[in-house]
């Protein structure tokens, strides 16, 4: 076993860090970008594509790079480090992951090729008002019509839903939940975008007899959705680790420079102890996130590993996010200063695909069915 990156992975990390630290050299640059639609920088998106990052996990015959979950984790962590608002996980991991998992050869070639080139932004329209974090769909139903399908109902919030070129939509079918492709310019499709608290974008997406094509062979895709959500939860975990790392480092730096009562804040043990506890939370979450990616890499139980990572990262994100603001004092809640935005993004990550209590409940449901958790044994390795 080995928790260290190899030299190629180190190089990848340095390259991504270089690109993103130029694009988002300070929080002012990010504020400028997220102020206007689509909430991210199209030029940065193109550069990510040129570096091969948008095709990272896809097979080479589909236009991708044929890399694995560790490489995806590296990119996600660097995104979190500077709060880059580009929809990498939404497009590559979630929508791309679904296409790669269930799409036909033709769909994969066309869509994954487009995503890899940076030409197509695809997102997964799955969340529905009134339900939370389930792998199934109820609020949108699919009806067969001739060779194709039509969709009716509402999805919200859909991350980057207004900007997306293609939507992968989950919809209720007889006997389960199916997956469908909807083009952004389809008739009967209404998209109303808005800003979310973390500076990104989401949308209300309304289907009224909207024409759709089944993704892959059709039929119930609940298991594939559950798996893709698990993979995305792991990737968001790494994004959160990057964000927590920066939030902690920013806070430690502040404690060393900010003076109160004639001395720098790091002279107050009450404050340094709280910073030490933030470090403990971060490193425990980091270990769990790295492990979950390794479980994915070796073909273990991704869904369960993702729940475990989600729980640990969620608790750590809440802890570090809130403490980062508190240890800064009033400046921590100002829009001009960076640290509050990290807390906002960590909060958003918590609610995108499942928070800590949700993950704990899922783990609790099976807690008596095994004796001990062995991270190196079945079902994980």
């Amino acid at each position: 076993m080995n928790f260290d990156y190899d030299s190629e992975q180190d190089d990848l990390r340095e390259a991504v860090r270089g690109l993103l630290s130029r694009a988002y050299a300070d929080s002012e640059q990010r504020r400028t970008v997220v102020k206007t639609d689509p909430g991210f920088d199209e030029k940065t998106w193109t550069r990510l594509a040129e570096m091969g990052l948008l095709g990272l996990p896809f097979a080479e015959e589909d236009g991708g790079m044929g890399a694995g979950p560790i490489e995806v984790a590296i990119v996600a962590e660097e995104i979190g480090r500077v709060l880059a608002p580009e929809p990498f996980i939404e497009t590559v991991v979630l929508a791309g992951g679904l296409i790669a998992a269930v799409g036909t050869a033709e769909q994969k070639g066309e869509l994954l090729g487009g995503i890899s080139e940076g030409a197509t932004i695809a997102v997964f329209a799955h969340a529905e008002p009134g339900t939370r974090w389930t792998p199934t769909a109820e609020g949108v139903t699919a009806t067969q019509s001739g060779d194709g399908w039509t969709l009716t109902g509402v999805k919200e919030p859909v991350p980057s839903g207004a900007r997306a070129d293609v939507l992968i939509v989950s919809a209720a079918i007889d006997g389960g939940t199916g997956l469908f492709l909807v083009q952004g310019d389809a008739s009967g499709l209404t998209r109303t975008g808005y800003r979310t608290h973390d500076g990104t974008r989401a949308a209300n997406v309304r289907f009224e007899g909207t024409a759709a094509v089944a993704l892959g062979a059709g039929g119930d895709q609940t298991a594939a959705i559950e798996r893709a959500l698990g993979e995305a939860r792991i990737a968001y975990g790494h994004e959160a680790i990057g964000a927590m790392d920066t939030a902690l480092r920013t806070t430690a730096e502040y404690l060393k420079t900010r003076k109160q009562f004639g001395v720098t804040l790091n002279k107050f043990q009450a404050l340094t102890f709280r910073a030490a506890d933030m470090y403990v939370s971060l490193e425990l979450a980091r270990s769990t996130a790295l492990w979950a990616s390794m479980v994915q890499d070796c073909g273990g139980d991704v869904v369960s590993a993702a729940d475990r990572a989600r729980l640990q990262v969620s608790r750590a994100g809440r802890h570090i996010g809130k403490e980062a603001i508190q240890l800064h004092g009033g400046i921590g809640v100002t829009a001009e200063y960076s640290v509050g935005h990290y807390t906002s993004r960590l909060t958003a990550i918590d609610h995108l695909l499942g928070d800590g209590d949700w993950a704990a409940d899922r783990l609790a449901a099976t807690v008596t069915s095994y004796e001990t958790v062995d991270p190196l044994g079945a079902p994980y390795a």
Partner: protein
Amino acid sequence: MRLQLSPELEAFREEMRTFFTTQVPQEIRDTVAAHRHVSKEQYVETQRVLDAAGLAVPHWPVEWGGRDWTPLQRHIWREEMQLANVPEPLAFNTSMIGPVIAAFGNQEQKERFLPKTANLDIWWCQGFSEPDAGSDLASLRTTAVRDGDDWVVNGQKTWTTLGQHADWIFCLVRTDPGAEKKQRGISLLVFPMDSPGVTLRPIELIDGGFEVNEVFFEDVRVPAENLIGEENRGWDYAKFLLGNERVGIARVGSTKSMLAEAKQHAREVSVGGRPLADDPRMAARIAELENELLALELTALRVAANSADGKPHPASSVLKLRGSELQQAATELLVDIAGPLSLASFADDGSDVPDWARVATPHYLNYRKVSIYGGSNEVQRTIIAGSILGL
């Protein structure tokens, strides 16, 4: 990055598991599993079984019984031992004074002490803490004054764990009271506990047990040859020794074994006609603890698997802090599962309350110690804040 153990390490893990579960007497492992006090005879018997198989001191130099294992092998060895409820080789011997003598003792001292230390023919105790020098160890006041071929020791030690069983003590003493820094002028002496002038007084703890003691020294004469290493360099040896003490202190295997036990009992205790384990709040509490423990185990593996240049991995400072918190949380969980049954703490074997529930609260109270010894958790936070965050 790779999750799986290599086939060699997988076989190693299996070999350890088989040895610990078949070669260490069941009765001794049951005592550990039941959180009952392990007797001196049980410790000695276990360590001799391990030593005979070359498993008592694998981290020592090969010349003195070490195995030249990787940190990851040592981690697996320790975890499997804890999972099998094997009493670990006495830390005072194998993690503390043994490595110090191997590193800093002279050849005569090595030959005289090391084989007996590994085999627990000598039971060592630690003479470090004093009433006014706990975490602030450098404030110690026990003195040793040179008189001819002897040192004459006067003073008092406290929190001397299992000192009642000890044959010898390794003791920090002040040999140069005029040294400019209080860390200077301290030396490391070893001497038998039955030396004239040594008095041991047990301290009763809130769990009703006696595992720590006060030790008083009145004109104890220690031959000069019992000085370990150089005069006035005891502080360096203490730091070396305490560094070893923190290795393996996360005690993941032991806590894992407690959580498995807690789940078992939670199935047996019935509340409102259903097992306590099915109560969503209890199930979630167990799930959260298991996940925290998983995170700790993975961090311990990250540290152990890190092969970089012998420098301590920064995350290693998390292990003692979080490890002690989770050990305590597991004992607290067991108390809460026992509920009212836990009040029968000192009932005898005629009681209808099962043994695990009777021992739960004394065990919980006893485990308040783990966030205090080995560098209190506040000391660990100071280390993290200072040396990692630069605060």
